[in-house]
C-alpha cells in the first residue's frame, strides 16, 4: 500500500528503502506510547471501580466525570502545544478566571451573549499575545513571564468587580441564552465534552498534518536548528501561547455557563492540574514530545482517580497523594520506556 504511493511520488526508490516499512508496526508504536498506557490505566480503573461501586458506571456519574474533566482537558490541549515547544504556561488558571469574570460582567450589564463570548475570547487572546511576545521576541523565560501574567490576570479579575461574584441567574434573557448555549446537553452529552472533542481533533490534526505542527515539534527538539532552517520560531511561539490562552478562555466561558456565576477565584491553581494532565499524558517538559490526546487522557485519569476515591469513600484529603503518585508514575514510565 505504502509502496504504491512512494513509487509514484519518488520514482527513484529502491526495494531496500521499502523494507523498513515493516519495522515499526502499529503495535510497537502503540506499546511505546505513553498515552496508550495511560488509556489502559483509565480503563483498568473503570473496570475495577465498576465492581467496587455500582454508582460508578451510572449515567449520572459518567456525566459528572466527563464534564468535570473537560474543563481541565480543554486547557491541557492548548498547554500541550506550549510544552512541546519546551515552554510552560502558568497563567491559564488566572486567564480562565479573568475571562469568566469579564464575560459575566459584560452579560450582566445587558450586552448580548455574543458580545460576552467575544469579550472573553478577546481577553484570553490578549493574555496569550502578551505571554507570547515577551517569551518569543524578548526571549524571556516562559516560567517567569507566565508567572507574572498569572499574578496580573488574577489581580485584574479582583479589580473588575472588587472581588464581588457576578451571577448570571435572573439577570435577563441573554444570560439564559448564554447558559443554554454553553451548558446544555446536545445529544445527551454536555457541551464542554463536545467542545473538547472538536478541539482535540482540530489540534491533533494541526500537530500532525500541518507545517505549523511540524514546527512546534521542531522548536522543542532543537530551537536553534529550527531557526537556522527558516522555521518562523517567534511566530510559532506566539501562536502556541495564544492557543493555550484561547483554550483557557474557552474553558472560562464553559465554567461560567455551568456555574451560573463568576467568582474571583475561578481557575485558581488549575494550571497545576493542567500541567499534570499533559505530563501524565506523555508531554515532556524538556520539549519535543507530546500529543493533544495525551493531555486529554491525562486529565481524564486525574478526574477518574478523584471520582473513584470519592465513591470508594476514601477521605478526600488523600486525592492529592494519589494524583501526585500518578504524576511520579508517569515520569517513571517515560524513563522505563526509553
Amino acid at each position, binding site marked *: 500500500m*505504502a509502496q504504491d*504511493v*512512494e*513509487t509514484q*511520488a*519518488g*520514482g*527513484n*526508490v*529502491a526495494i531496500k*528503502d521499502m523494507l*523498513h*516499512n515493516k519495522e*515499526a508496526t502499529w503495535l510497537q508504536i502503540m506499546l511505546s506510547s505513553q498515552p496508550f498506557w495511560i488509556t489502559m490505566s483509565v480503563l483498568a480503573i473503570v473496570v475495577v471501580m465498576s465492581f467496587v461501586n455500582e454508582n460508578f458506571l451510572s449515567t449520572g456519574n459518567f456525566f459528572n466525570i466527563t464534564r468535570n474533566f473537560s474543563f481541565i482537558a480543554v486547557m491541557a490541549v492548548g498547554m500541550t502545544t506550549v510544552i512541546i515547544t519546551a515552554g510552560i504556561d502558568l497563567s491559564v488558571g488566572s486567564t480562565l478566571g479573568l475571562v469568566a469574570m469579564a464575560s459575566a460582567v459584560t452579560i450582566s450589564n445587558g450586552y448580548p451573549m455574543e458580545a460576552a463570548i467575544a469579550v472573553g475570547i478577546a481577553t484570553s487572546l490578549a493574555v496569550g499575545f502578551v505571554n507570547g511576545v515577551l517569551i518569543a521576541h524578548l526571549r524571556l523565560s516562559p516560567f517567569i513571564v507566565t508567572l507574572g501574567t498569572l499574578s496580573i490576570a488574577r489581580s485584574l479579575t479582583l479589580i473588575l468587580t472588587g472581588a464581588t461574584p457576578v451571577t448570571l441567574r435572573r439577570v435577563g434573557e441573554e444570560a439564559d441564552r448564554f447558559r443554554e448555549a454553553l451548558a446544555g446537553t446536545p445529544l445527551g452529552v454536555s457541551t464542554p465534552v463536545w467542545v473538547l472533542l472538536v478541539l482535540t481533533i482540530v489540534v491533533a490534526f494541526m500537530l*500532525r*498534518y*500541518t*507545517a505549523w505542527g*511540524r*514546527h512546534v*515539534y*521542531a522548536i*522543542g*527538539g*532543537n530551537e*536553534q*536548528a*529550527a*531557526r*537556522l*532552517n*527558516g*522555521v518562523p520560531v517567534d511566530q510559532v511561539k506566539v501562536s502556541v501561547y495564544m492557543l493555550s490562552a484561547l483554550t483557557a478562555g474557552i474553558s472560562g466561558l464553559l465554567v461560567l455557563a455551568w456555574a451560573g456565576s463568576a467568582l474571583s477565584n475561578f481557575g485558581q491553581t488549575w494550571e497545576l492540574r493542567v500541567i499534570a494532565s499533559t505530563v501524565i499524558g506523555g508531554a515532556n517538559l524538556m520539549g*519535543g*514530545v507530546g500529543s493533544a490526546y495525551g493531555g486529554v487522557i491525562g486529565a481524564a485519569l486525574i478526574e477518574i482517580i478523584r471520582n473513584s476515591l470519592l465513591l470508594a469513600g476514601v477521605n478526600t484529603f488523600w486525592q492529592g497523594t494519589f494524583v501526585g503518585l500518578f504524576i511520579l508514575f508517569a515520569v517513571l514510565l517515560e524513563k522505563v520506556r526509553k
Partner: protein
Amino acid sequence: MALLELRKIAKNFGAIRALDEVDLRVEPGQVLGLMGDNGAGKSTLVKIIAGNFRATSGAIMLNDEEVHFHRPIEARKNGIEVVYQDLALCDNLTAAANVFLGRELKRKIGPLRILNYSAMYARAGALFGELKSETRPRDLVRQMSGGQRQAVAIARARLTDSQIVLMDEPTAAISVRQVVEVLDLIRRLRDQNVAVLLVSHRMPDVFAVADRIMVMRRGRKVADKAISDSSPEEVTGLITGAIEAA
C-alpha cells in the same frame, strides 16, 4: 565569473575585530578550502555568508549583484546552503522531517494545505540513495549514528538546486569511513557545478578535495592560492604565523 564574491568584509563584536577586510571569491564547480586556527574568523565569515551575522562593512556579491542577507532563510533562497558543524538537526523528528524542515512539501485538500508525508519520504529516500547512505527517511534522528546524521544534514543541503554549499567542519566528528564518504560527496557536488566552501581543521581532507585554499589568521586573509601551488607545510606555517603571508 565569480559566483560568490566578498569585498572587504569586516565584522566587529564590540571592540573585537573578528574580520578585517577579507576578500573571497569562489566559482561554480570549485571547492575552496578555508583554513585557520580557532578564532581566526572562519566561522564568523561563514556565518556572514549564510545570513546569521551581518557584516560591519564590506559587500557580498552573488552573481555580480550585491546581496544583503538578514536571516539564514534569505541566503538559502539565493541558493546558499549550509551544513552546520552541529548539523542543526532536531533529534525528535524523523530524517525526512529534518531534511524538509522549514520547506515542507504540502498538498491541498480543499482549503487546507497539509503535509505531504509520502512525497517527503520518497524524496528524502531518493536523496539518501544518491548519497549511498543507509539512512532511512522514517527513522528518528535520535537513533542515528554520526554518519547517518551527517547524511541527513547533507541531504538537506541538496534538496534544492543550491549554487553554493557551505560546510563547517563536516569531517570533525565522524569515523574514517564516513570521512571518505563525505569527501566523495563534496566531489559529487563539485561535479554538479556547485561551489563548495569547506571550512576544516583537517589538512588531509582539504588537500584531498579542495581546488583552492584560503588561510585566515586573526581575522585577516593571509593566503589564497591554488592547492597545487601550496603544501601542507606552507599552510601550517600560515596558520600558526610562522609564515607571514603567501
